[in-house]
């Protein structure tokens, strides 16, 4: 199950925040195919946002083929997103690398800048 955190000061539309957080959870393997998304009622009770906003976000995810609404049952994840959940070999390698970077004296911002520049080199032209 995923829990949404709504930030009203980002300027990002609320429904888009839900879409993005759902995708992020799918990429990290926190949501897998068959998992149920929280109901609109559960989301709005916790966040106090408008129910139509949640429904709009779920419709958008459905339109992208990521989830499906089953009548009377809820909304379910249809597929996995990204090939690198947090516990994959890639995640472990990146973890080892981060440990070595820290031991070599790099700070968090140095590592983030380095990682972003490597991303820019090898994933040219792909949106983040």
């Amino acid at each position, binding site marked *: 199950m995923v829990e949404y955190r*709504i930030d*009203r000061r980002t300027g990002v539309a609320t429904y888009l925040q839900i879409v993005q957080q759902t995708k992020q959870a799918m990429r990290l393997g926190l949501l897998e195919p068959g998992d149920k998304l929280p109901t609109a*009622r559960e989301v*709005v*009770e916790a*966040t*106090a946002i*408008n*129910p*139509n906003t949640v429904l709009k976000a779920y419709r958008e995810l459905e339109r992208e083929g990521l989830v499906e609404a089953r009548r009377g049952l809820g909304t379910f994840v249809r597929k996995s997103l990204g090939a690198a959940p947090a516990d994959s070999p890639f995640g472990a390698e990146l973890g080892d690398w981060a440990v070595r970077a820290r031991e070599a004296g790099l700070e968090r911002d140095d590592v983030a800048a380095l990682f972003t520049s490597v991303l820019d080199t090898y994933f040219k032209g792909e949106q983040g």
Partner: protein
Amino acid sequence: MTDTAMEAAGLGKRFGRRKGWALRACTFRLPAGRVCAVVGPNGAGKSTLLAHAAGLLRPTEGTLTVLGTSPAAARERMAYVAQDKPLHPQLTVEDTLRLGRELNPRRWDAAVAERVVADGALDPDVKIHALSGGQRTRVALALALGKRPELLLLDEPMADLDPLARHELMGTLMADAAENGTTVVMSSHVVAELEGSCDHVLLVGAGQVRLAGPLDDLLAAHTLITGPAADLDDHTVIESRTTGRQTTALIRPGGRLTGTWRSTTPTLEELVLAHLRSPEAPPLHLDDTVEAAV
């Protein structure tokens, strides 16, 4: 269920001949299933409007219908929580809920009312007068929601609540709207706290409806622009300030924006403040027939 929760046509109210009009020429339609914010400064007529909807005041001129009928005929199907949340101070929380059941024998849903009270960890045996403002609001809301209303009218419901209680009660309200499709109409002069929760807006100023319509459409109809001072004659200018060579303005674009403007969509608060600072700006009413299928 009707698809219109509330509709006013030329609604006007004058308290006594000597006084001015508290409401005048109010015309709007609120579709069912919406969460509508009634915003405006103190004394604008928000409470007067809600009291008409609740059937407590009679219009001096014009009409107001709720749920497709007169407020009196719809009384059973709606709930109204007044600003001062009148409850019997000597009754306990439990007695108050029992009163709700006795007064609404056909509609009362004890489970809903008890859950709203339980969510606030209220002791059922405590008397109303011993409760804090937030706890009293919770009991008033439990009474209103226990009635299973199709239309819920709340006059400044969050006024005396701390931020945590506001968030919790708003969550409770939104959950009810999600589950039962309840139309919620709530007034507030604190606009920012309603921004994420409402999807429909009525801006009342000096007894008139200045803005009415779906929130997203109202925001999209306006643009906040910043740039070198220039001619804005093609657009409806709501408010404009020029400092040195730079102009900041809130406009309703009347065509393509030419020139080197930086433009953004306003927030609800920016939209409301600009209209309140410019009482002469023309009103805007947007109807939503498009999204009726949602």
